[in-house]
């Protein structure tokens, strides 16, 4: 008697529930606030095109950074255990080596000059041709490149996993396993800490005594001559691509060029990207001779003149070259102690 009644009620109620109820609320997702980049000196931004950098907040004792430092200097990453990242990117020497092109395992010569690892976190892409989007992506390249470490990831990971003490370091740094992702992440963390605020940054931030008269005049010439059109922003470069030879044809004047000289073209295959490279940062440039992507120019004075001639269409006199050199000297500094 009770049961059929209950069943009728249940059926009726369920039918009403299934058919009659409809949520017609239009839910629009909240708009995302526009991502803001870091604050910087308004005067420097508007008047010069430069943005000061800072290493405040970088903790050299951070376990992840210390692990990255260890791996950066670890020769087990290379096939024959002969070289490490630091072999070509010597942190105490401007973050590069002193060779035109780096030498890999079995004395294989590389195709391009080693770019500085210092402040590379501020570059908008990595490598001369910008083929890596960030430091972590960049860190995977050299380990398997036949002209660099010529190694194999499975071999590298096996070697590292066999080191009990190192495995502990990985755990202490917050990694669940010793794997490729953890290795590249730790190396990228270390490289991200290699920031070198220089006297010019202090000057940008208001310390008027940070630059001597020659460097100060050099900075003004740097702006007036147009160098700042490309070498600008936080890294005084490193935030755009540009053709090598805007006003003149550098390669026609220097005997053609190689495949490596095609630059960004090798990545995009677009004809307009021939001889296009990432504009290098000029931070610590006084310590990173020889210059250009092929390391073909030994002296900074010659590099300045070539840049002025082929990029700006200007022939510089000796005074301008000296002033620009003095300015470039004010862009050099070392990373925090504990990172070297």
């Amino acid at each position, binding site marked *: 008697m*009770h*049961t059929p009644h209950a069943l009728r009620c249940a059926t009726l109620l369920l039918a009403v529930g299934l058919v009659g109820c409809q*949520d017609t609320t239009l839910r629009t997702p909240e708009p995302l606030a526009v991502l803001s980049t870091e604050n910087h000196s308004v005067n420097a*931004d508007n008047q010069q095109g430069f943005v000061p950098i800072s290493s405040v907040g970088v903790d050299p004792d951070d376990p992840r950074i210390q692990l990255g430092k260890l791996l950066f200097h670890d020769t087990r990453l290379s096939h024959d255990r002969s070289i490490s990242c630091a072999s070509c990117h010597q942190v105490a020497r401007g973050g590069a080596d002193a060779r035109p092109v780096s030498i890999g395992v079995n004395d294989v010569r590389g195709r391009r000059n080693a770019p500085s690892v210092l402040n590379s976190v501020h570059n908008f892409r990595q490598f001369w041709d910008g083929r890596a989007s960030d430091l972590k992506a960049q860190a995977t390249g050299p380990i398997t490149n036949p002209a660099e470490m010529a190694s194999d990831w499975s071999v590298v990971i096996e070697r590292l996993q066999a080191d009990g003490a190192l495995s502990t370091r990985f755990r202490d740094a917050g990694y669940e396993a010793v794997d490729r992702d953890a290795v590249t992440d730790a190396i990228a963390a270390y490289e991200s800490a290699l920031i070198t605020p220089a006297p010019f940054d202090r000057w940008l931030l208001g310390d008027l005594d940070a630059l001597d008269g020659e460097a100060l005049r050099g900075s003004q010439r740097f702006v007036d001559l147009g160098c700042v059109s490309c070498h600008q922003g936080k890294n005084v470069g490193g935030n755009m691509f540009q053709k090598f030879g805007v006003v003149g044809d550098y390669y026609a004047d220097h005997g053609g060029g190689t495949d490596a000289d095609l630059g960004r073209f090798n990545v995009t295959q677009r004809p307009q990207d021939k001889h*296009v490279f990432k504009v290098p940062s000029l931070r610590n440039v006084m310590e990173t001779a020889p210059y250009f992507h092929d390391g073909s120019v030994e002296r900074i004075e010659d590099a300045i003149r070539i840049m002025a001639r082929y990029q700006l269409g200007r022939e510089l006199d000796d005074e301008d070259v000296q002033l620009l050199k003095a300015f470039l000297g004010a862009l050099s500094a070392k990373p925090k102690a504990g990172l070297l």
Partner: protein
Amino acid sequence: MRVSSNLVLLLALSGLTALSFHFSRQGGLGTYVNDASYLNQLDSLNTAIDREILILNAGLTTHFDRLSALSTSLVALTKSKHGTAPLNQVSDHVERKMTLVDDFKSDLAIYRNSVRAVRETLAHPDLRPVSAGSHDELDAVLWLLLEHMAAGEVNASHKLTRAMATLENSDAPQPDAVRTLLTHARLIVDVGRRKQATVRSISDHSFSSYLTRLHGESTETLNRTQSLAARWQISFVLSFLVLVGLTVQVVRSARHTAH
């Protein structure tokens, strides 16, 4: 017989309750909400990039750090998401956009530098080159046009091109300063046009339109899913209540039979 039918009914209601509970949770809803939020983030970044390009093109700021940071964020956001097929196509749009942004930065730097060089020449009469005395009239036209260009006017660029061609084809020897000046003038014309074409391509809203369409589809799917989930929630509540009531009835009935 009656107890048996009651048990069957209880079992059926339990099944319905469990089913309603399962569908009311709508495991897929989170995905749709994420998709809408993701598209919203893409759209915000895309809009911010377009705005920064206009600011740079107008000369209101002097470096590319902000544009580069926004572009990096957009690329990273694209890579972070592996959604449904239309979302995966976003990366193609982003790649095209990044190529345009890279071209814009490169061209703007060259354009600015050449305008700077022309202005500097015009500002220093002693730096003005001469056309070796053979093209005084043309020289005057050239300077006039260069002055227009230095002021940011490039409408008369075809006249300038003709004037430059005449000078370049002249037999008269040209000083280096003239050649350099003509090179900068050519860059202003060529790169300036290319830059403006790039800006137009960037601002043609094709990516925005694509995102808007995807957003509309995502919102529609989200609404439909939410509506269905609401129905199942109500079904769950009702069937649960009936289940409880029926259980009480069955227990009472069983006790009554026992007595």
